[in-house]
């Protein structure tokens, strides 16, 4: 995936999230928005690596690490799930079919994993 396209998807995702949850501006401010955009670049980098290695586990392990880092900084798992769902949608029109299908499957498995760990926590 081209760098410009990744940047565009990361920015669109951050905008969508902050439009859907305007209270995030109060909670995390401009810095939070920038972090969300950067985090989405990391998500896309890891999706690309997983695709390059043909190994979805790379993205699933990253997801578990990400959940630990973000939930300890008051970003709840539901917000990560919401983020990944938006990425599935935003990948749709822009990315080449084989790569897109692989990445969407990674994201779906990661969402299932996060929902599972949410259940365990009683969330």
């Amino acid at each position, binding site marked *: 995936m081209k760098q410009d396209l990744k940047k565009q998807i990361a920015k669109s995702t951050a905008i969508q999230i902050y439009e859907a949850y305007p209270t995030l501006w109060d909670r995390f401010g401009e810095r939070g928005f920038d972090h969300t955009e950067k985090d989405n670049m990391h998500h896309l980098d*890891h999706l690309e*690596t997983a695709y390059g*290695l043909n*190994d979805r*586990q790379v993205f699933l*392990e990253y997801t578990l690490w990400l959940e*630990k*880092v973000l939930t*300890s900084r008051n970003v709840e798992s539901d917000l990560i799930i919401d983020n990944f769902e938006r990425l599935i949608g935003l990948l749709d029109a822009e990315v080449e079919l084989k790569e897109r299908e692989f990445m969407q499957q990674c994201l779906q498995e990661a969402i299932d994993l996060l929902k599972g760990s949410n259940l365990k926590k009683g969330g």
Partner: protein
Amino acid sequence: MIQPTELAELFLQGNDREALVQVQQFLDSHNRKKLFDQLLTPAMYHIGELWETNTISVADEHLATAICDFVVSIIDKRGEETHSSKRKVMVLGPEGEEHYIGLKMVSSLFRENDWVVHYLGPNMPLDHAIKAANRWQPDTIALSAALVYRLPTLKAYIKSFKELAHAPAIIVGGRAAAFESSRILIDEGAILVKDLEQLEHWIKTGEEPDDEYRISI
């Protein structure tokens, strides 16, 4: 004997003197490889986990890394005359990789085993690494990466190093090397070491570690 979490606490306090005293006491009855594998690496992994869970800040983590760096530098074996007959190793991290304590431990272990080391540090651009290798002609190039998403970059580095006319051995370590997908690096011709124990075994015997992933499939 001090435990890794206790040493991590000294690092986080910025207590360089006491950290060094404790490490030197450990070295009275252990070698450097054991110090790195059993004490310093677990201490630094513990600090990484404290950051992951937001127990410490980035500033705390950087302070702890600086103290660990100080300790590793102080105990490094230096100062002996360089003979042309000694084997040579070039140690580096690929572009984008900022972690470097592991590279310093690897350098120290090679020195302890009487190699001449050129430590080029982390975040080393490939074209400059190639030029340095052509100029200095090391017997071995050692690479390390902490994050699994550096694997494609490592693969590209290995591919280029394999084209060097003097054909150095290429060793890869770091947390990324412990990941199952890292076996693609073996396919590129690299020797994968998952810890300093395996690295020292290779240094002393030239025997490569078993490819556990290949056996398990």
